[in-house]
């Protein structure tokens, strides 16, 4: 055990740059600037969100009450904490439903994305180098083009009298146009479509490293292709599968644009609820409470799990 830690320290990264580390002025600047920036624009905002989630909605600018009030004449300070927003979150099944429905939609679309993405990643990884570059570029290209416009493209495609319905009718699969747009189906299509590259890229990264001789060894030892796949390929691709699933699942839970454009009015997702609380109802404290809960039940556990898995698995 001792040897192991020693070896990693000895041969590992970060061993150098004692001097850069000791270069006091440079060190302060290089660590300090991003640190202060993130503290100010990333960490403190959450404190503010939490603070406001404890206040009451009011018709004012900004539209919430102060947590602290300070009566100058009587030198009297009051702290008024309002847990009403959180209680309301629990009471009204609307919010709970929205959370659960977000998780459900995210889970299902993650699985679909995996099922579609895996063969694609596998094919790319197993192609000869020139073809591989080309196919990889084909996957990356949509990723660089506007996400909003690609979702918008589906609006046109899925319309009642749009091309998808036309095709389905002309091949005789359906007799009259289906209502796809503004349903959960459209939301799934949109999500899977948008997040497919996020699944393919980490999968590709692990499958590319997969040694072909391992597959040959498995076959040599009597595995049928099907068995080889589940006994060798899948276990070895696990880090990529996990990374890909996280990259899809997490942002999808908080997704707003896709349900707003493709979903129906009954497509309940928490991102949309938050947005509506904020912009339609102008209930900033309630929106803050929703955000706080989302942070605590969703983002924090995932962050912790990710840190535990180690920072090695960054796939960007």
């Amino acid at each position: 055990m001792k040897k192991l830690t020693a070896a990693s320290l000895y041969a590992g990264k970060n061993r150098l740059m004692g001097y850069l580390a000791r270069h006091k002025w440079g060190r302060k600047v290089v660590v300090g600037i991003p640190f202060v920036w993130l503290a100010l624009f990333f960490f403190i905002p959450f404190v503010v969100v939490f603070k406001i989630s404890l206040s009451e909605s009011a018709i004012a600018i900004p539209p919430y009450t102060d947590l602290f009030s300070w009566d100058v004449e009587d030198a009297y300070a009051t702290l008024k904490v309002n847990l009403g927003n959180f209680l309301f979150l629990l009471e009204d099944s609307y919010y709970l439903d929205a959370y659960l429905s977000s998780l459900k939609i995210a889970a299902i679309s993650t699985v679909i994305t995996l099922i579609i993405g895996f063969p694609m990643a596998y094919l790319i990884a197993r192609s000869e180098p020139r073809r591989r570059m080309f196919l990889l570029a084909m996957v990356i290209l949509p990723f660089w083009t506007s996400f909003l416009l690609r979702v918008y493209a589906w609006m046109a495609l899925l319309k009642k009298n749009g091309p998808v319905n036309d095709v389905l009718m002309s091949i005789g699969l359906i007799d009259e146009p289906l209502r796809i747009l503004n349903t959960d189906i459209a939301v799934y299509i949109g999500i899977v479509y948008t997040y497919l590259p996020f699944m393919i890229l980490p999968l590709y990264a692990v499958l590319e490293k997969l040694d072909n001789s391992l597959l040959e060894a498995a076959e040599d030892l009597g595995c049928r292709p099907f068995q080889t796949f589940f006994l060798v390929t899948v276990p070895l691709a696990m880090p990529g599968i996990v990374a890909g699933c996280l990259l899809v699942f997490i942002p999808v839970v908080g997704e707003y644009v896709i349900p707003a454009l493709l979903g129906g009015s009954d497509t309940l997702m928490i991102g949309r609820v938050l947005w509506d609380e904020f912009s339609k109802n102008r209930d900033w404290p309630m929106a803050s409470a929703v955000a706080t809960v989302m942070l605590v039940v969703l983002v924090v556990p995932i962050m912790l799990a990710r840190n535990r898995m180690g920072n090695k698995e960054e796939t960007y």
Partner: protein
Amino acid sequence: MTTAEHPAQTESQTDTAVNPLTAPAPELWRDPNAKPFVVFDGITKEFGDFTAVDNISLDIYKRELFCLLGGSGSGKSTLLRMLAGFEQPTSGRILIDGVDMSGIPPWNRPVNMMFQSYALFPHLSVEKNVAFGLRREGMADGDVKRRVQEILDMVQMGHLAKRKPHQLSGGQRQRVALARSLVKRPKLLLLDEPLGALDKKLREETQFELMNIQEELGVTFIVVTHDQEEAMTLATRIGVMNQGEIVQVGEPHDIYEYPNSRFVASFIGSVNMFEGVVTVDEVDHVIIDSAEAGGLLRVDHGISCAPNQKVHVALRPEKITLSHDKPDQDVNCMFGKVEDIAYMGNMSIFRIRLANGKEVRVTQPNYARDIKGKFTWGDMVYLHWEVDSSVVLTV
């Protein structure tokens, strides 16, 4: 690894040029009044709770080609990195030419290093890589050009000056790396596994070239290597390292013929080890009763040990002679069966099983072409050796 067998032969091939300018380094370490050039004074380096280098004190003299030899994790690279200034010793001092190096950053040390990976800057051409160090000194353009050209010509890389590192072969990269580390004319050159990335044949050629350059420039070299053959060929002296400590320092010949411990004996070359008890302990010889060897072993040097102390006798395979007839000696003689023969071309390796089950390794030079049939599988043979062939090891 059977490459350990012939260091004694390669040693004799060493170029013995007599030009006074390129004469071999004076053997300063034998002179008790000589001033050491590099001094490690009680150096310890800890990483967390792991001690990589453990209280090492060592003197290295001017114009030496000193090899630090050890397995991976023995602390040899850490020692080198402390000399270059990449690591700070946890305790102890390092002096170079009498100057205490503590607190002096790498860029201010009179030391240059050739890295194991060569560490050639991939974005710079060969020329610019070599010029990098000179430019840092603020040297004038013309001088930089001249010095770069000179050193590149010396390593025969002048014609590839415009190439980028990735357009070079392994051997060419090695030359550029060497040129880059020499061009600043450092007092001390550190080489981390300088030949490790080359294939065997190229390695042998480069070894001699490296020695010539060292002698020509009169620079002190400290080489880190795990390859004992390389160390034997290159070094004026070798420091054998194990688990953060230097276990023996000496000239290659001494290290090979007079190892001071079982570790050194078996780390360098191959060796047969017989456990036994000292029965006669005189000034000029000892006799050891070894059950493992199945008889008495006589060694013609005295040792200091308690009576009846358990010791080991180390015997190199090439020191043993095989014969069908019983030799005329009652010590240093064993009898066994040939179990295995490996024909290596220049010699053959025999594995011989003694009656008590102990296996002994013997090498015999193939001095005639048809010697092969002399001993064959299953033969019962006598093994014998001279009294000055083996060494007694107490640790």
